[in-house]
């Protein structure tokens, strides 16, 4: 690491995050403490709560910092991260729909360019202009409340900037070092300009972005970053042209920003109670799960194209990758977009970052994703600007609300064998938006004569889950406004101010819903095994199969080995099983599209994924005919069942590639875990670049290559203190290995044990 400032900040942060840290609590703050708020609308109370939060949360400027502003700890679901603003009856009513006071969402990217170009001032002006046009509008009252909430929150953001301004000037007064004194004075002056007014230069723009970002994250909107090198570049380019900044200086600022993204990291697990995450039975596991308290959906997307289709790679793209390479952090989660005009240098630098074992960047393929988005109805100029959400699904930044949910294919298969009953959940368990506890009745498996009978029953179970999921998503449309409107975030999403509507009421230009086929590899493997042994070879009778699944293979180890080892597995370039995965996906896509027409503006976009929940989804399904025992985790995303890709990554790649990626606009991430030693040095780099090139040419959507080795992971499991910085990829992001629970550590080890 070069540069004493960055080095000092890095070391200071490392020390800070390895100690136990206190959560900031907003439990003493309530909008009801002041008279008059009782009678105001919920959205105004929520806006007031944002104001309370921004005027009370701690402010701090570290020694040597250039970019200032801190996000309070606990912002991700721990303790009481936000002031009271809702009445009990409102909370109870929303509770009926599974919406809670801590229902943070924030998976979509705001239009940061708007704040950089117009400032808070510009947004307020727009809100006021809209207010004037409301005369005679039947929804005037509602829109007025929204627009006033926007005004109130933008003022609150300004107040936070002012708090930092005061802090900077008081520090400057005491500062003996004249250089630092001048820096603090500059910070003071900068915060007088931004984010209230448009940014005048690159440094303004970075500070303005960061303050906006931190406000959203401090007020329960864990939003991703989007195309940082795209919306900040015009400022850097202008500064470079004017000779006002050097690339080295710009690098220092990007480095400082990267450090900021990691400030909330914790190596000591927080004690505060976690968010009321609605996951049946497993809720107690969420806390520890994946070290989730170190994940705030901080995704950066770089490279790609501009809205006209020109290459958008620029100097800032490389500065971002340099910063990611410099630190052994997990944040931000960086991804790179590639297309035919992407410079070779970017491919090289991306692969060099992969070589460090960061588990980043993920590779996004414009050649498939842009046409796929167009296929789903987005105009080319929008599709070309795609970015990702907090995990890795594709979305249109700055103008779209985004939600996602799974259709658990392996659970559908379980329902086929049990005639609609879960082996895990009981009747008392409640279905959620994510996971149903029962399926439909598709008949007695004992009556099946052919594989086709099983297949048709499976499709009916899957259709039912697709229909239910889409109906439920539509039912939930507009419901979040009853408890969780987001006025400030809405002001940064195109469409909301124009319509005078919060994003939770339908203000955004697009509503994307990524409907994700989950557990595809395990499902295809299971179907292939039943097809082969029960229907083709007639080696196993249906009742034997049903008994084995029911008993979780107890006393049936030989049968389990037969299913596990003697039937074709996804990931090995074997048509007999890959063909099944293709058929599942084709049916899924067709069904989703056929149900797509509706009065509500939700666009359902199909994809394949488990994200970091491969273990959790596995806990929802009993034993399956791929030789998997109950409660065992699933294959991650569109990758193979860990350890089952016996023919190596090229074969895995062919299996993956048979899927119809042009229909999977939400993406289908291929997670490949490979031995780091095989990719060392210049030769290893060439191999890696070759691999990525093939992925791009042969039209995959999203690729993640994580390099590690089994020995290191095993050692880290035994001696976590020595391996604190070891990073692994967990579905959609990077995590510190030693902070994962044992099950997930074992899953990671299995992934590298081919």
């Amino acid at each position, binding site marked *: 690491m070069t540069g004493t400032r960055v080095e000092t900040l890095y070391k200071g942060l490392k020390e800070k995050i390895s100690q136990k840290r206190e959560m900031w609590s907003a439990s003493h703050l309530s909008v009801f403490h002041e008279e008059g708020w009782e009678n105001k609308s919920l959205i105004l109370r929520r806006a007031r709560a944002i104001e309370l939060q921004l005027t009370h949360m701690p402010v701090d400027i570290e020694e040597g910092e250039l970019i200032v502003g801190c996000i309070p700890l606990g912002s991700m679901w721990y303790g009481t991260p936000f002031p009271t603003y809702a009445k009990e009856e409102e909370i109870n009513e929303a509770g009926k729909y599974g919406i809670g006071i801590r229902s943070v969402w924030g998976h979509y990217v705001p239009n940061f360019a708007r704040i950089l170009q117009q400032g808070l001032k510009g947004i307020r002006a727009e809100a006021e202009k809209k207010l004037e046009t409301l005369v005679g509008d039947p929804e005037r009252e509602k829109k007025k409340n929204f627009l006033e909430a926007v005004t109130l929150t933008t003022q609150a953001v300004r107040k936070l900037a002012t708090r930092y301004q005061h802090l900077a000037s008081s520090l400057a007064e005491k500062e003996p070092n004249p250089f630092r004194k001048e820096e603090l004075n500059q910070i003071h002056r900068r915060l007088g300009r931004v984010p209230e007014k448009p940014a005048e230069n690159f440094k303004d723009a970075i500070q303005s972005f960061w303050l906006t970002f931190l406000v959203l994250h401090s007020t329960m909107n864990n939003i991703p970053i989007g195309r940082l090198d795209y919306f900040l570049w015009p400022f850097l380019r202008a500064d470079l042209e004017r000779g006002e900044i050097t690339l080295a200086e710009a690098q220092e600022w990007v480095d400082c920003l990267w450090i900021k993204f990691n400030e909330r990291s914790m190596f000591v697990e927080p004690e505060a109670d976690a968010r009321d995450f609605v996951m049946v039975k497993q809720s107690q596991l969420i806390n520890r799960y994946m070290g989730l308290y170190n994940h705030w959906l901080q995704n950066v997307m770089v490279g790609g194209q501009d809205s006209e289709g020109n290459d958008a790679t620029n100097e800032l793209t490389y500065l971002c990758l340099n910063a990611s390479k410099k630190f052994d952090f997990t944040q931000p989660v960086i991804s790179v977009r590639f297309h035919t005009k992407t410079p070779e240098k970017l491919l090289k630098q991306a692969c060099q970052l992969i070589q460090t074992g960061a588990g980043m960047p993920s590779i996004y393929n414009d050649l498939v994703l842009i046409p796929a988005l167009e296929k789903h109805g987005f105009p080319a100029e929008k599709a070309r600007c795609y970015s990702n959400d907090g995990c890795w699904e594709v979305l249109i930044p700055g103008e779209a609300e985004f939600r996602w949910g799974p259709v658990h294919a392996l659970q559908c298969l379980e329902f086929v064998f049990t005639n609609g009953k879960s082996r895990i959940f009981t009747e008392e368990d409640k279905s959620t938006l994510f996971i149903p506890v029962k399926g439909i009745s598709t008949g007695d498996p004992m009556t099946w004569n052919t594989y086709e009978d099983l297949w048709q029953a499976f499709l009916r179970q899957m259709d039912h889950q697709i229909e239910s999921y889409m109906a439920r998503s539509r039912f939930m449309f507009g419901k979040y406004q009853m408890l969780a409107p987001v006025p400030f975030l809405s002001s940064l999403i195109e469409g909301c101010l124009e319509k005078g509507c919060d994003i939770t009421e339908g203000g955004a230009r697009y509503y994307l819903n990524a409907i994700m086929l989950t557990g595809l590899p395990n499902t295809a493997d299971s179907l292939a095994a039943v097809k082969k042994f029960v229907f083709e070879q007639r080696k196993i009778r249906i009742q034997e199969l049903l008994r084995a699944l029911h008993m979780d293979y107890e006393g049936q*180890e*030989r*049968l389990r*080995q*037969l299913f*596990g*080892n*003697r039937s074709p597995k996804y990931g090995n*370039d074997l048509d007999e099983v890959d063909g099944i995965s293709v058929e599942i996906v084709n049916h899924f896509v067709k069904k989703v599209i056929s149900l797509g027409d509706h009065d509500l503006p939700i666009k359902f976009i199909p994809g394949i994924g488990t994200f970091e929940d491969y273990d959790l989804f596995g806990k929802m399904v009993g034993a399956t005919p791929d030789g998997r025992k109950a409660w065992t985790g699933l294959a991650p995303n569109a990758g193979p069942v860990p350890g089952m890709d016996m*023919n*190596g*990554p*090229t*074969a895995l790649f*062919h299996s993956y590639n048979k899927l119809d990626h042009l229909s999977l606009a939400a993406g289908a991430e291929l997670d490949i875990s490979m031995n780091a*030693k*095989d*990719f060392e040095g210049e*030769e*290893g780099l*060439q*191999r890696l*670049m*070759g*691999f990525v*090139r*093939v992925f791009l*040419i*042969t039209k995959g959507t999203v690729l993640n290559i994580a390099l590690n080795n089994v020995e290191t992971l095993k050692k880290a499991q035994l001696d976590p203190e020595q391996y604190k910085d070891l990073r692994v990829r967990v579905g959609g992001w990077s995590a510190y290995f030693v902070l994962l629970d044992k099950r997930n550590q074992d899953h990671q080890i299995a992934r590298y044990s081919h």
Partner: protein
Amino acid sequence: MPAHKKKLTIDYGAKGLIFDIDRFAVHDGPGIRMAIFLKGCEWTCSWCHNPESQKREQEIAYHEKKCISCLTCLDLCTEKAISYSPDKKIVIDWKRCNACGQCVKGCYSEALKLIGTWMTVEELLRIALRDKIFYDCSAGGVTLTGGEVALQAEFSAHFLWACKEQGIHTAIETSGFSKWSRLKSLIPPTDLILYDLKAMDPKVHLKEIGMSNRSSLNNLKRIKEFFPEKEIQMRVPCIPEISDTEGNIHETSQFISALGIKKLALLPYNETASAKYQWMGRAYPFPDWKTQSPAHMERLKSIAISYGLEVEIVH
């Protein structure tokens, strides 16, 4: 056209005995490669890290950890070569086993495996073509290794020519221990030769490997003589006190640099071989051998560099 440069008529049905295929090999030449491991070797290096590569016929391996003690194999074995043992799960009488493979058919846990599969040129080529795009995008290709490639020279030549016809980069890894006529037939369709030399001292070589190194050294000279343009990379597997001595590296470097060869790879000793011996029902004679220290490897490297060679250490 001289006889040895003439392309033969490819027999796509020619069969080779293969004990492994690695479609993403990283130690056997540049780029992304498919490595095909041919079964059979006339040398009997006591430390060989692929004991399953030595015999020229199929054989059985038993992986005790995978065994679930279902004992199906006891019934399937027609030679009564398998018995039950409470602590070892099953015991194989290796003298009785004729590697017929019956037991393997019923071993669903894959504890019992038949090592060696007969494959045709066409079958292998089909796999290689499947991954051609990876070779093209990474300057990779296929590598025939072993065992000893020259022992299955006819099959290998057909396969290598078949690859050349498809525009696939080819490499072979050989000890060079072969009749010249056999080895010679492999050179024209090969783009890169990875040539293994173990001990230069004929006495050490005879003692440790069971055969003289004369054929190996002579064949290298012949390749240089008849195919001077052919790309050769020398490799020395560093076997403790046999080939990893400073003296051996001096001698090796001197010998190859005199032939005008530029590239040398030093392969540190691989500690993981002993498990494989267990599976083959054999004891590994050197359980205590450790891989060389990085300092020692660097010392060997600098010796080789002093002869003007380009040296890399391949782990």
